[in-house]
């Protein structure tokens, strides 16, 4: 540290700054200025600073809405944004993880200021909307996205483009529903409580089957992987709709009326205030999601196998030269990815609403794909991207009860936020070097 601070003193000539560096500063200043202006406007627009909040997601015996004063929160948010603006204007805005942290803090300040504006001044009488805890909804929405994004990371780190996450979601959802329904209605040896978990197994099987198709055509026949992914999505969409249409209505109970996963409360952790109930009173699938993030990160970056996966994705020829079986490692990564994506698909039936419906995943597989890219092909980054999207989506759901924002703008908000995040802060990304290239020996 001392050497860097002394260096300008020794060399008095003005520092020459990189153009990219200047551009970064300008971008930060503009961003924070806009945030600050918006926050000041929000704070000034509040007339009656009373708002109601709830630490849980729904009003229960445990969670009762409480009143708060918006004034401190709104002006506190303004102060944070102003501080960030000053730092950026003086070119003292930190880099690396500190900068990221500060950026997140400004984002949260904006979120808080916006919420204050949206939830105050609701007028007397009638339905009073309250600010509910955003974490449970965020986790719920993010669960399939995270699992799908992990699948994408595994495949693409190994050099196989996986656009077929949506296909894995759809088939996973369908077969999870079928497995769970069959287990409940016909397989008497499975206890009722485990029928939904048995559905997860169905999701995994289906996800792996689609992954096997992906691997078979991509690795054995060298089919262009972008084409393949798009085609598999069309195939799975058609096939699941077709199969759904083939289930006669009199057999609906036995084939498409699954048991839904129950919430499991983890004893001690669930008692943590605010976040405990949100994070640790969830279904088995959510816990599997937590574990999967850790597992995939560990596998990819701490194990020999993960090193091999990354090697065949970056430079298959070099990997082959040192004796790694390129296609075998790719097969393993693709199939393992299928496990996670299939679990993610199971969310849409046994993990949430129950019966399978046409295109039940509604294109979220593509959003998981976007999360992979936004997270720079890193499992943790992709997880954050997916959680960010889940957060925005959940916010949109919650705000639909409040007046000031038009519904269509609200609906588009998660997607607009993603565009802004990608264009403004993520920027150019570098995929694994051999992503999408079939490896031909010799």
């Amino acid at each position: 540290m001392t050497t860097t601070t002394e260096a300008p003193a020794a060399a008095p000539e003005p520092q020459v700054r990189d153009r990219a560096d200047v551009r970064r500063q300008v971008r930060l200043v503009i961003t924070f200025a806009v945030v600050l202006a918006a926050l000041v406007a929000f704070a000034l627009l509040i007339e009656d600073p009373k708002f109601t909040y709830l630490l849980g997601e729904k009003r229960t015996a445990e969670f009762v809405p409480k009143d708060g004063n918006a004034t401190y929160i709104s002006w506190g948010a303004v102060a944070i944004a102003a501080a960030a603006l000053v730092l950026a204007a003086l070119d003292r805005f930190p880099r690396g993880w500190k900068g990221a942290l500060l950026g997140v803090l400004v984002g949260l300040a904006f979120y808080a200021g916006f919420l204050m504006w949206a939830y105050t001044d609701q007028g007397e009488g009638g339905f009073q909307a309250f600010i509910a805890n955003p974490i449970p909804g965020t986790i719920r929405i993010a669960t399939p996205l995270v699992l799908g994004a992990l699948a994408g990371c595994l495949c693409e780190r190994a050099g196989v483009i996986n656009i077929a996450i949506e296909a894995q979601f759809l088939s996973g959802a369908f077969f999870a529903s079928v497995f769970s329904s069959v287990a409940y209605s016909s397989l008497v040896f499975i206890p009722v409580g485990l029928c939904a978990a048995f559905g997860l197994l169905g999701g995994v099987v289906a996800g792996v089957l689609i992954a096997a198709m992906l691997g078979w055509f991509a690795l054995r026949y060298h089919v262009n992987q972008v084409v393949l992914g798009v085609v598999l999505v069309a195939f799975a969409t058609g096939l699941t709709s077709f199969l759904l249409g083939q289930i006669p209505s009199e057999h609906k109970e036995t084939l498409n009326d699954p048991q839904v996963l129950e919430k499991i409360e983890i004893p001690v952790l669930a008692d943590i205030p605010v976040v405990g109930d949100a994070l640790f009173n969830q279904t088995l699938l959510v816990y599997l999601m937590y574990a999967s993030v850790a597992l995939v990160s560990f596998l990819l970056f701490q194990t020999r196998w993960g090193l091999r996966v990354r090697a065949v994705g970056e430079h298959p020829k070099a990997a082959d030269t040192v004796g790694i079986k390129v296609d075998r490692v790719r097969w393993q990564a693709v199939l393992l990815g299928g496990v996670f994506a299939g679990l993610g698909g199971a969310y849409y039936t046994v993990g949430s609403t129950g019966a399978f419906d046409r295109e039940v995943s509604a294109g979220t597989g593509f959003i998981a794909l976007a999360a992979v890219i936004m997270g720079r092909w890193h499992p943790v980054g992709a997880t954050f991207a997916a959680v960010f999207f889940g957060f925005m989506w959940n916010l949109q759901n919650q705000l639909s009860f409040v007046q000031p924002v038009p519904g269509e703008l609200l609906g588009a908000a998660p997607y607009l936020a993603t565009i802004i995040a990608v264009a403004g802060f993520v920027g150019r990304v570098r995929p694994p070097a051999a992503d999408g290239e079939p490896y031909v020996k010799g």
Partner: protein
Amino acid sequence: MSETPNGPAGPAGPGNPGTPPPAGDQGQGTTTQGGVPAGKKEAGRDRDLASWLPTVVDSIAAVVLALVVGAVLIMFSTPRVVESLSYFFSYPWDFFKFSGEAIWDGYRALISGSVGSGTAWTRTLERAAPLICAGLGVSLAFRAGMFNIGAQGQILLGALVGGFIGFHYDLPAGIHLLAALAGALVAGGLWGAIAGVLKARTGAHEVITTIMLNYVGRFTMLYFLGKEALQRPDSDNLLSPPVDDSAAYPTIGGVHLGVLLAVVAALFVWWLLERSTLGFEMRAVGANPDAARTAGMSVARVYVLAMTLAGVLAGLAATMTVLGRQDSLTDQVAGTVGFDAITVALLGRTTPLGTVLAGLLFGALSAGGLSMQGAAGVPPELTQVLQALIVLFVAAPALVRGIFRLRGQGRKADVMATGW
């Protein structure tokens, strides 16, 4: 193709090992001068003349194979056939008879509904036209090295503006049509340009931005549908009036003018890609953006122009439903055209001619699928499965050759665009 940008593609001299496959000239990012790795792979095939025949054979074989799988699905979607399975061992003939009848009825309806009569041809062409236009847009972006998933949103915006001009203003017949057409093209183009500008200026990945813009486009459509000016007076749904007759495409020889425009668009894209400077730059950027930049091309400009043109073509696709069929605007006005267009473009190996043929095939399957459903009770999803299987098998010639025991070297799997 990249090494002979101006030469005729056909009669390249024999023994020119560097000539890449006719359509697969997307180039791998790693090749320095197209065909360095391909040279070894294709040493066995030294004549261009013979190169198209296996492609055609493969494609037909792929379609046949997909139809065989489809036949199995038809069998199991027919209740009579499924019932006959229960007494298969005591009376197997029923199973074969009923299956045969079901498959025969289904495929006969497919053919008669798509090419069997004048009206069938009309329906096929009018369904193919939007697929061709949007598919050309996807192809064009692909050739410039971008994966445009955003045709859906571009179509929606084109339909919104084109349709609005079509029913809201009162203009003389010809001018009204031109104004609506221009509005649709400009709106689609601008929507496409957003993704191009974002990629060029900030490096934001076009896959992300186009996916998100599809959703934003849908909500934009919903927002405007909620406005008074776009509400159909006699309806409570979010539905606009259809465009005036003065803004609709006139009918020429049984089909509306849009079908002709689709053909013109294909010719234009061919000219652009193969004969113009901009097209050459697009292909160069698509093959290797770093090399293109070194050669003095503006990669950013190419990205923006390619995405804009892709959007314009998607806007043209939007006019097929709004000005051609005179559909009302809803948030479903684009159907699944935007996504099918990706499949069409990829089946056509991102060439204009290929896209037209693929669009015709998909249009025929879609038109025939309807009559299959009506006449033979085959579920409509079967069409989608068939389309997917055809593309899959066309993309995996080695598999199809293995199944049909076709001899000969055959075509290698295309390497159109590797990586992102």
